Each structure stands twice: as C-alpha cells, then as structure tokens.
C-alpha cells in the first residue's frame, strides 16, 4: 500500500458509534485484522467470532470497503448472563482502498469465524521491471 491507501486505525476492541446517517444507533465492535500486501494485492484477515455467512455484509463504494457482521450464537431458553467480555454482537469496520486495487475482483472467504479478503491489484498497477535498452 502506498500513500493513497490508508488503513483505518484501530484501538483494541474499540467501540464505535454507528455512522450518523443510519437511523438506528447501533454500537459495534471493531474486529481485529491482519493485513499483508504483496505484489499481487492485499490480503486481509478479520476475526468475526460467531458470525454465520448470512450475517456478513461486505460493501465497496467509492474506494471504501466496509465490513459489517452480526454474531449469532444459539442460546438456551432462560439464559441469564453472569459474566461478559464481549458485550455487543455487532462488528463493523471500514477501510480505504487506493485506486490501484481492482474492487470487482475481491474474493471473500469466511471460515471458523475468520474472514479472509483477497483484494487484487489492477494488472497495470502491479510492480514490474523495466528493461533498460543499451545501444
């Protein structure tokens, strides 16, 4: 990633207010992510424990990638909560993508509560070596 691509900063387990344009105010958690870039593009892993595939939404708009997810853990009838370290079942986080990434070719895979996003670089944006011709 270069200057045009910024990674949103995250305080560990920070709690964000939902964006103001949403009518319903919802408290969400920032999922922890790992990001690795190589010549082909960027790979992002996000921890989304308890999130089934149908509750995960990934949107790309104007170079902004947004991940929204809700955990769904079946619970027994009449459960009373005694101790909670995770208090909110909603996750959300946004990332800014530079124009060198091909947003139409993003691949997403969700397995065991970990989302893996592969964001390829545009063909013309891949680094390449330029041969210097010698007379």
């Amino acid at each position: 990633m270069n200057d045009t691509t910024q990674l949103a900063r995250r305080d560990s387990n920070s709690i964000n207010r939902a964006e103001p344009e949403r009518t319903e105010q919802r408290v969400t958690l920032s999922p922890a992510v790992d990001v690795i870039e190589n010549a082909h593009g960027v790979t992002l892993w996000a921890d989304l424990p308890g999130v089934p595939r149908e509750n995960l939404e990934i949107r790309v708009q104007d170079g902004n990638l947004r991940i929204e997810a809700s955990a769904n853990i079946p619970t027994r009838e009449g459960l009373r909560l005694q101790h909670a370290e995770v208090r909110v079942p909603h996750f959300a986080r946004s990332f800014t993508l530079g124009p060198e990434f091909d947003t139409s070719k993003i691949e997403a895979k969700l397995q065991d509560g970990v989302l893996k996003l592969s964001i390829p670089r545009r063909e013309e944006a891949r680094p390449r070596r330029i041969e210097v011709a010698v007379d």
Partner: protein
Amino acid sequence: MSDLYFTTDLFSQFDRLHQQMATLFGGYPSSIRSDRLSAFPQINIGTTDDTIDIVAFAPGIDPKQLEVSIDKGLLTIAGERAAVTPDASDEAARHYARERFSGAFRRVIELPQHADPDKVEARYVNGCLCITVGKRESSRPRAITVQ
C-alpha cells in the same frame, strides 16, 4: 438479539473508559483476574436452571487443537493460534496490520460447587467454542409445597 449479550450499551461505555484509563496509566496489572479487554479468547458465561453455558470467542482455530479440561472444579480452555505469515519466498510481502492474537493461550474458569464435571459438552461453531456444563440434580430449583 441473542440473550448472550447485554442489550444496553452502558457497559461498553465503561469498557471504553476503562481502556482509556489503562492506556494512560501503563500496563501494570491491577488484579489477579485477567483483563477482559486483552485476554484471548474472550469469554461470556451464562446460566440456566440446569446448565452453565460458557462461550469462548476463539475464531480461526482447528477444533482438534483446542483442549478443554476440568480438574478440581476448574475448567481450562487451552490451545494455540498460528499467526498468518507471508510466504518466505515472497520478498515484496509486507505486514500492514497485526492486530489478531497469535500464539498459545490458556484461560481458566472456576466452576461453582453445584457444577457436574461428568456432564460437559463442547462444540465449536463459527469460531466460537460453546461449552455446556450440567448442574447437579440437587441444585435444581424446585418449589416447596407449603403444608
């Protein structure tokens, strides 16, 4: 919404305050209890009339690597989560963020007296380890008839 979470966000406001205080005053542990903001996996515990339900939020772990044991009323969850690493041959690969936990972990929960260590079930679903511990017959709630 699932019953496993508090519906109010008051507690999350406290969490945020707690976190800000913790960053201000450095990383000295103030208590023997684990800090819920940094521990892995994070754990929620609830009870019903005949079970104790524990959910450990441990995404991305091979269930075979998870070790759940009960000894002398202590429930232990242990395991290891591998870090994602770029191919060693890929020289252009660079890490931009490394926020996800990696390495070995162990969390211990003290079970109440009335927990029955012979009635334990554990399953791993969508990155959550759900453990159900039964309660002893004698501790079940029952109505007492007035004569």
